[in-house]
């Protein structure tokens, strides 16, 4: 009898853990990706409050778009940034495991759109994309030797169309846009 109660409790706990994991992945891809980086590389992100200004339409950023247009890429108020500074992005498990973890943290609706890797320089850039009503969510993960960032923004279809012409540069353009202010 004791064994059966114990087994039921264990099963219940496992189901709850699984459900909580699924719910978490569904609710916030940004948080899930930050968590993957923290767990895989044993690093801690910083929240930078001034970056909240990044989504303001009035600001100008040197966004490197096809055609050299200078304007905000992200829609107002849509920017989420997590920054990892002066930390060591070294993992025994390696970058391959990190990519797997990253993809499994995101729902299939996130399209792995661009991936640019320079293993010798320990640089990794991943851009994921998903539809969000009339707009699109872009999730950009940048990992360097000692720095990293996760940026999530909403972009309009017009902006995405411009960015798509030079996909290799999207990660940099979005990250610069979200982390640069030039008042």
């Amino acid at each position: 009898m004791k064994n059966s109660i114990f087994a039921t409790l264990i099963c219940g706990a496992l189901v709850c853990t699984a459900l909580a994991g699924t719910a978490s992945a569904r609710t916030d891809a940004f948080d899930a990706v930050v968590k993957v980086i923290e767990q895989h590389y044993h690093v801690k992100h910083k929240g930078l409050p001034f970056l909240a200004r990044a989504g303001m339409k009035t600001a100008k950023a040197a966004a490197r778009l096809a055609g050299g247009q200078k304007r905000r890429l992200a829609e107002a108020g849509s920017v989420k940034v997590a920054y990892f500074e002066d930390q060591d992005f070294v993992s025994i498990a390696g970058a391959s495991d990190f990519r797997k973890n990253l993809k499994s943290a995101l729902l299939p609706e996130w399209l792995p759109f661009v991936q640019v890797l320079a293993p010798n320089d320990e640089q990794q850039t991943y851009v994921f994309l998903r539809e969000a009503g009339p707009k699109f969510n872009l999730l950009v993960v940048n990992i360097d030797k000692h720095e990293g960032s996760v940026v999530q923004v909403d972009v309009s279809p017009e902006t995405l169309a411009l960015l798509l012409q030079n996909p290799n540069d999207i990660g940099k353009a979005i990250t610069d846009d979200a982390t640069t202010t030039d008042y």
Partner: protein
Amino acid sequence: MKLLSHTNLKIASLFAAVVFGSAITAMAQDTRVQTSQLDYLTAKASSTVDVNIDERLIQLTAKFLSTKNPDEASVKEVVNGLKGIYVRSFEFEKENEYSLADLESIRSQLRGPGWSRIVNVSSRKEGNVEVYLMINGSQIGGLAVLASEPKELTVVNVIGPVDLEKLTKLEGQFGIPELEIESSKTKRKN
């Protein structure tokens, strides 16, 4: 009896639709060149680029490209009707980091039904460039480029009606590298 034959007709139509749909899906899948077997090269490469642009994104781009700007209008014309652009590129510090078996794993797919290699295609770049077209009846269903240099390996796969001329217009855009492809005559070889 009449009701039965009507039902049979419906079932037959549904079956035909399913078969036709499956055939279309299979065709699209055959046009897509698989490159996951090259994943292991990522660890050896000094730089890798992987771009996946599906039909929806291509059409979105086409929709917002201006017809007034000659450059944009030209790209818009080229991308209209395309169903996918997939690019996989590796750069290495040393030579011979990828093997002939890696090249063969791509070529073997491009020897499949419908694929033809275009001969007399050259590139101003160093190395070897092979261009393949997928022909579905009288229509071009896709294109694949295998570019191999001693320290570089690139696979470009464009799905949809695209010819060599269109490909050259797409170079440098949508993640397609500057392949500097030149064609003296368009000949096909199975």
